[in-house]
């Protein structure tokens, strides 16, 4: 068994109206960030799960996305899975 961490990103499909994004954009403009062109706001879901192996874990997360985490009528979903041990090193994302 391995312990995995999945990072799931759920975004409204590009054709779908994103009121929250529009409001945040207006807010950024008002704060003086006029160079902002577009803002879209979605969800970031971190799931810790144990599975037989990474492939199995990936399959499970994919299933979760389909069944619960996103509504494919209006949302797109993508995810990545990594073993928990090397979670600290993984991910190029900077932390502020």
């Amino acid at each position, binding site marked *: 068994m391995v312990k995995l961490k999945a990072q799931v990103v759920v975004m409204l499909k590009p054709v779908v109206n994103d009121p*929250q994004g529009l*409001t*945040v954009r207006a*807010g950024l403009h*008002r704060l003086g960030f006029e160079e902002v062109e577009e803002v879209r*706001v979605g969800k970031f879901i971190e799931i810790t799960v144990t599975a037989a192996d990474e492939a199995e874990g990936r399959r499970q997360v994919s299933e979760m996305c389909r069944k619960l985490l996103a509504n494919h009528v209006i949302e797109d979903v993508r995810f990545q899975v990594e073993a928990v041990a090397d979670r600290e090193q993984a991910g190029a994302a900077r932390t502020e």
Partner: protein
Amino acid sequence: MKFGVVVFPGTWSDRDCGRVVTEVLGAELEYLWHQEKDLKDCDCIILPGGFSYGDHLRCGAIARFSPVMDSVVRFAAHGGLVWGICNGFQVLCETGLLPGALIRNDVCEFRCQWTHLVVERDDILFTSTLRRGEVIKIPISHGEGNYFADAATLSRLEQNNQVVFRYAQPDGHVVPAANPNGSIHNIAGIVNREGNVLGMMPHPERCAEPELGGTDGLRLFKSVLEAFAELVV
């Protein structure tokens, strides 16, 4: 004295607060549009409930950058009375006039219901006609009223006696079962150290007439009015 009620786009209890001030309390009122800096000589500024900017991103996050808020912050710094109700409380936390933050209710649902609050402070203007330890009945209506502060902030709040209202049972017992949203220490309202900035999630303006189910909220408005009358004398 004069009450000022701030209106952001998306605010909805502005008119409820306004009507209580003018029609029930019989006091003077100004509505303060978020784009204006002029507080029009108001003595007590109410930041009312609603979904300012749709509560997009976070409740109160965008509203706090309104021009009117610059004036409110300065007004508060000079000891002016500022009263945040529901969304107004969220704005005050975002602004930093009050510590902590309001996160999603632990039940993950919006809650519109009556609650009981035990009054912990009667030495501030907002509660001058209430007594410490008494229980008042007042409705809530929010999805994100779960008060959070980190351990250090929380102990400072408690030490300085800054908690004004806690969710309680009708008999005044502060127990988890009386907590509608998961707020830490059952906190329903807090005041700054100076005692001039109050934030609370429940809606006193919704219980200022018997026809609407109670009048405990009116006592808060009266407290402010009477305390002011004394100040002037």
